[in-house]
C-alpha cells in the first residue's frame, strides 16, 4: 500500500480567486525519500499542508479529489490522528518553539498524548542523545545554534514514531554548512528508521548532497516532472522553471560537456574527474581574465571600533575597515562574528564602546556619532533580514512611499518614484495589494523597494536573498548590480558563496580577530584556510 496518494486533487485557498493546485496525482511509497522542488508560488508548500492535514483541518479552502495517508482519507481523519502518521518540521524553527526548554519542546507531543512523566523523560533523553542535543536539554531553544534548533524540532516529531517525515524548507533558516549537516542527518535517520521522507525545498544543490529516490518538480500549481536526480540534472528543466542547478553541473554545461555521457552526475564525489578534466581545462583557459582594479575613493571609514554585548566577550576589538565609493562588497564570516552587529553600528541601531565612523559626504567628513538614526538613513539604507520588522503600512504602495511622505515630497514626485521603484523591483503588478497577501520573498522586496526609493548612497543588505528561489534571487541581484553600476555603494551580508562570487567586486571576511581577509571574491574562495569553514 502506498504511503501517500493524491488522486485528482485541486485546491483553492478561501482568500484567493484562483486555485493554487491543479489536478495533482501523486503516489509516494513507504520508505521512499522524495524531494518536492519548485519556485516560490509553485504550490509546493500547499502540497505539504495537504499531506499533514493542515488542509483542510486548520487552513480553510476548497479541496476536490482525495488525499490518502495509508488508507485514511485526510478529509475524514482528524488533524490529531494525522499528526501521528505524518511528523512535520516547519520552516523557521524559531517561530515554532513552544517549550521553555529544549526538553519540554521535544516532549510537547507526548504531553498532549498523556504519556506518563518517567517514560516521557526517558524518551526525550533517548532522542536528544540520538540527535546530538542531549547537552542542550535544559537550555532555552532560542539560545541554540541554527542547526541545533532544527534538531530540536526534528526530535519533537521523531519522538512520535510516525511513518512519514515532512520537512518544509529545512534549509531556509540555516547557513550552508549547517544546512548540509541537516541534510546528512536526515539521510542518516532515513537509513536507520526506513521511514518515508519528504523534503520540500528549492535549494536543489544542497539537498542533493545526499541521495534521494525521486524529485517531484512543481510549477504554477502543477506537477510537471517526476524524475530521478540524474535525469533531472541531465535535463535543463530546473533552469526552465527558474531554479538553480548545482554549480558543478552549471560548470560542466558551460564547458560544453555532454551531460548524457557523464556517469553519476547526481553525486559530485563520484564524477569521473579524469575524463572530464581536459574539457574543463580547455574552458578555463578560454575564460576571460579578471578585470583590473579601479582606484576608489573612500565613502565610510570605520576606525578602531570596539563593541561587545557584554564586557567579557567583545565582538570588535579595534576593527578597521574602509568602504569605498562604488564597492559591491560582500561581508562574510561564520555566524556570530558580528556581521549584523557591524551593520547595526553603522546605521546607529547600536552604539560602539569606542571608535569612529567617518562618512565622506562629498568633500566633507561627517562623524556619524553626531547623527541620529533617521539622519544616517538619508545617506545609508539598511535592509534587515526579517522584512516583517520593517513593514508598518497595510498597502504596498503606501509602504514604499512612506519614507518620501515623511520627508515631505509632493504627491506627483512620490507617485512617480514609487512606481519606478516598484517596476524595478518587479512589484508593480501588486502595487495595490495588501502586504499580508505577499509571500516572505515578496515582502522582502517590498522592504528593499521602500529603502531604494529614498535613493541612499550606501545600501547595506542583511542576507538579501535568504528565502528566495533562484529566479527571484537572480532578478534581485541583477537589479542590485545595476544600481551599483549607477553609483550606489553596496554592502551585503551573506552566507552564499555563489552570491559573493558572482556579484561582489570585493569580499571582506570577518573573523574573531577582526578582518581576516579583504580581497577579490575569487581570491577569498581560492584561500582554503578562509573559505572552507564558510562553505
Amino acid at each position, binding site marked *: 500500500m502506498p504511503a501517500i496518494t493524491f488522486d485528482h486533487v485541486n485546491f483553492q485557498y478561501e482568500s484567493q480567486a484562483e486555485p493554487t493546485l491543479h489536478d495533482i496525482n501523486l503516489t509516494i511509497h513507504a520508505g521512499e525519500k522524495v524531494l518536492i522542488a519548485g519556485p516560490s508560488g509553485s504550490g509546493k508548500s500547499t502540497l505539504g499542508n495537504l499531506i499533514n492535514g493542515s488542509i483542510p483541518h486548520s487552513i480553510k479552502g476548497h479541496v476536490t479529489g482525495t488525499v490518502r495517508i495509508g488508507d485514511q482519507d485526510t478529509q475524514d481523519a482528524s488533524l490529531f490522528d494525522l499528526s501521528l502518521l505524518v511528523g512535520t518540521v516547519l520552516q523557521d524553527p524559531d517561530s515554532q518553539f*513552544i517549550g521553555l526548554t529544549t526538553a519540554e519542546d521535544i516532549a510537547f507531543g507526548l504531553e498532549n498524548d498523556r504519556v506518563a512523566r518517567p517514560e516521557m523523560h526517558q524518551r526525550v533523553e533517548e532522542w536528544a542523545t540520538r540527535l546530538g542535543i542531549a547537552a542542550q536539554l535544559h537550555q532555552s531553544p532560542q539560545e541554540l545554534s541554527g542547526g541545533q534548533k532544527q534538531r530540536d524540532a526534528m526530535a519533537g516529531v521523531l519522538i512520535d514514531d510516525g511513518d512519514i517525515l515532512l520537512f518544509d524548507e529545512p534549509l531556509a533558516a540555516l547557513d550552508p554548512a549547517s544546512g548540509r549537516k541537516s541534510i546528512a542527518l536526515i539521510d542518516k535517520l532515513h537509513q536507520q528508521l526506513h521511514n518515508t521522507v519528504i523534503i520540500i525545498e528549492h535549494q536543489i544543490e544542497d539537498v542533493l548532497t545526499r541521495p534521494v529516490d525521486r524529485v517531484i518538480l512543481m510549477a504554477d500549481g502543477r506537477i510537471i516532472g517526476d524524475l530521478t536526480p540524474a535525469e533531472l540534472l541531465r535535463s535543463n528543466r530546473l533552469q526552465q522553471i527558474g531554479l538553480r542547478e548545482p554549480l558543478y553541473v552549471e560548470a560542466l554545461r558551460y564547458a560544453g560537456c555532454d551531460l548524457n555521457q557523464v556517469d553519476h552526475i547526481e553525486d559530485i564525489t563520484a564524477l569521473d574527474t579524469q575524463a572530464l578534466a581536459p574539457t574543463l581545462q580547455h574552458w578555463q583557459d578560454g575564460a576571460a581574465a579578471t578585470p583590473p582594479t579601479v582606484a576608489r575613493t573612500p565613502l565610510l571609514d570605520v576606525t578602531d571600533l570596539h563593541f561587545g554585548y557584554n564586557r567579557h566577550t567583545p565582538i570588535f576589538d579595534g576593527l578597521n575597515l574602509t568602504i569605498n565609493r562604488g564597492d559591491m562588497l560582500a561581508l562574510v564570516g561564520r555566524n556570530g562574528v558580528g556581521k549584523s552587529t557591524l551593520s547595526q553600528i553603522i546605521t546607529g*541601531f547600536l552604539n560602539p564602546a569606542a571608535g569612529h565612523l567617518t562618512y565622506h559626504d562629498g568633500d566633507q567628513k561627517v562623524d556619524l556619532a553626531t547623527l541620529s538614526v*533617521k539622519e544616517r*538613513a538619508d545617506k545609508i539604507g539598511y535592509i534587515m533580514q526579517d522584512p516583517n520588522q520593517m513593514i508598518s503600512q497595510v498597502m504596498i504602495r503606501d509602504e514604499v512611499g512612506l519614507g518620501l511622505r515623511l520627508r515631505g515630497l509632493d504627491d506627483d514626485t512620490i507617485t512617480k518614484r514609487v512606481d519606478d521603484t516598484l517596476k524595478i523591483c518587479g512589484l508593480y503588478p501588486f502595487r495595490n495589494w495588501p502586504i499580508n497577501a505577499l509571500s516572505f520573498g515578496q515582502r522582502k522586496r517590498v522592504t528593499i523597494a521602500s529603502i531604494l526609493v529614498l535613493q541612499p548612497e550606501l545600501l547595506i543588505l542583511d542576507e538579501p536573498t535568504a528565502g528566495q528561489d533562484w529566479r527571484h534571487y537572480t532578478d534581485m541581484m541583477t537589479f542590485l548590480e545595476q544600481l551599483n553600476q549607477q553609483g550606489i555603494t553596496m554592502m551585503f551580508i551573506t552566507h552564499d558563496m555563489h552570491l559573493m562570487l558572482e556579484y561582489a567586486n570585493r569580499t571582506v571576511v570577518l573573523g574573531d580577530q577582526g578582518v581576516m581577509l579583504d580581497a577579490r571574491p575569487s581570491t577569498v574562495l581560492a584561500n582554503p584556510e578562509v573559505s572552507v569553514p564558510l562553505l
Partner: protein
Amino acid sequence: MSFQLFGFDDQDTWLHHLSGATKLLAFLGLSIIAMISYDARFLAAITIMSLILFKQAHITWRQIRLVTKFILFFSILNLLAVYVFSPEYGVHLYGTRHLILGSTGYFTLTQEQLFYELNLTLKYIVTVPLALIFLMTTNPSEFASSLNKVGLSYKVSYSVALALRYIPDVQSEYHQISLAQQARGYELSRKANLWQRLQGAGKILIPLVFASLDRIDTVSRAMELRRFGRYRKRTWYMGRDFHASDWLTLLATVLIIILGIALFKVNDGRFWNPFR
C-alpha cells in the same frame, strides 16, 4: 536588551524545589487570611515569616528593585488616600478616641487611625514577598502545570505560560522595529519633539501587532500539529509530584489559616482591639 523584566530565576533552594501547586495554594491561602484578619499580632507574625522566606529564596535586590519601588509607591498612595478620605475611620472601628494631633477639624490624627493603617501596611508586607517568592522560584511551565493541577483548564494555563514567555521576545522585537522605523524617517531621537516621538512610537505598534499575529499563527499551527487539545487532560514534562516538603508546607499553611480563624473567635470578630 538592558531592561530585564523580573521573572523565574533558577536556583537551588528548598523553595525552588517545592511544587508550583504547593506554592500557589500557600500563597493564595496566606494572602486571603491576611486580607481578612485585622489582628496585628497575627499579621506581624506572618509578616516576619514571609520576610524570612524571602531571604531564603535567594532573591537579589537588583531583580526586584523596579517592581518593589512600584508597589511601595502605590501602597503609600493607598495609605494616604485611606487617611484623606476617612481620617476618623479607626475611631469608628475601635470605638475609642485617643487624639494625638488636631481636635475638632476634619483632619485629626488618632492612635486608632494609625493602628488601623499599621494593619493595612502589614497586609501589604505579607503578600508582596509571598507573591514575589512565588513568581521568582516557580518555573513558568511548572506554573502552568500547577494552575492545571488546581483545576484550571490546561488550555488556559498554557496560554498564561506562553504569554509570560513571550514578554522578552516582544520587548526585543519592539526595539528592532522602532529602529527600523527611525531609519525610514520617523525621528524618535531627542532631536524630535515629544509629539513627533509619540506619533512615531504609535506607528511601531502596527508592525509589532502583525509580527505578533504571525507568531501566534505559526505557534498555534505548530501546537495543533503536535496534538495540543487532543484530550481533556495532558501530562507535564516539568510537573512535580508532591513530596513530604509539599505536604508539610501545605499543613503549615492550613494551621496558620486555622489560627487566623480561631483568633476571630478570641477577638470576637476580625479586629483585635488593644484600646479596650
